[in-house]
């Protein structure tokens, strides 16, 4: 035998008497208070809410398009920012690398100059020797 409390728990979620179990139906037949709650629940659930007017699809599509555009702008801005940051990082890196490279270049350049000087000195010496020999012959 079902109590009123048990029946009320059921009929507020399942007010349709026919859909309920035999035990609930039996209780509803002999209990006017529970039957009234079931009737009220059914009637309330069947009353559609009043909707006078809703915004149309047109403004929604416009809003969605504006939102898409804004997202696109943000995406481009984010990409541009990433580009700027990457370029700056690369520039800073290059700048930090530059002195080391310059000194290496200087060393290389100095080495080049030194060997050239040696070659030049040897050439001058050879010229001088040749010239002295020439003078001696004359």
């Amino acid at each position, binding site marked *: 035998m079902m109590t009123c409390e048990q029946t*009320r*728990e059921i009929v*507020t*979620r399942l007010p349709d008497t026919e859909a309920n179990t035999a035990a609930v139906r039996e209780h509803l037949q002999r209990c006017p208070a529970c039957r*009234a*709650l079931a*009737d*009220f*629940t059914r*009637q*309330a*659930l069947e*009353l*559609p*809410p*009043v*909707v006078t007017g*809703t*915004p149309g*699809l047109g*403004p*929604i*599509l416009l*809003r*969605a398009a504006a*939102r*898409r555009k804004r997202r696109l702008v943000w995406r481009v801005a984010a990409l541009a920012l990433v580009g700027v940051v990457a370029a700056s990082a690369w520039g800073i890196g290059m700048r930090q690398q530059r002195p080391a490279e310059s000194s290496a270049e200087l060393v290389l350049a100095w080495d080049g100059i030194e060997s050239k000087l040696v070659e030049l000195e040897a050439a001058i010496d050879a010229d001088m020797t040749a010239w002295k020999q020439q003078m001696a012959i004359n």
Partner: protein
Amino acid sequence: MAEEEKNSDAVLIAAYRSGNQRALEELFERYRRPLYAYFNRMTGGDTMAADDMFQEVWVKVLRYLPNYRESGRFSAWLFQIAANQFRTAYRRRRNWLKFFTPAGDEEATPETADDAAPVWHEMDENGRRRKLEQALEQLPPEQREVFHWRQNDLSFKEIAEIQKCPLNTALGRMNLAMKSLRRCCHDDM
């Protein structure tokens, strides 16, 4: 009924994905009333807030519909977005009100029916509808929500998922809602 609805929604969604704009219009037409009624009820008739939330939900639907995966009913998915939208707006509003409302003023106590007012079973359909809407305004938002979703044929399992609560909580909320509504509607059947 639910299976039929699911199938026809799926057909419309597929048509929209393949570029049929008319399918979107049909989907919109099918759900605009229950969705708007939800916001209207939850905001207590604040049409500006309801309009804004309603539009926002459809903007989200347009954004996510191309990637929508059919794991349940479309209506449950749509109402889930609506409930999230309302919760976000409600939280913002509540935080805002905390600054400007003196303590104790935020929660209204549910009113019982006026003794002189006509009783439920003597009212016509319009009268009942008006009375029900007034009574719904008195309910806590969670109970109001359960009632609304039940009116739109959502199962308690779907409602529990939307409200992110156990099934028994959703059932309990419906029970409490019906008891309060009946008291407010001056039902002496």
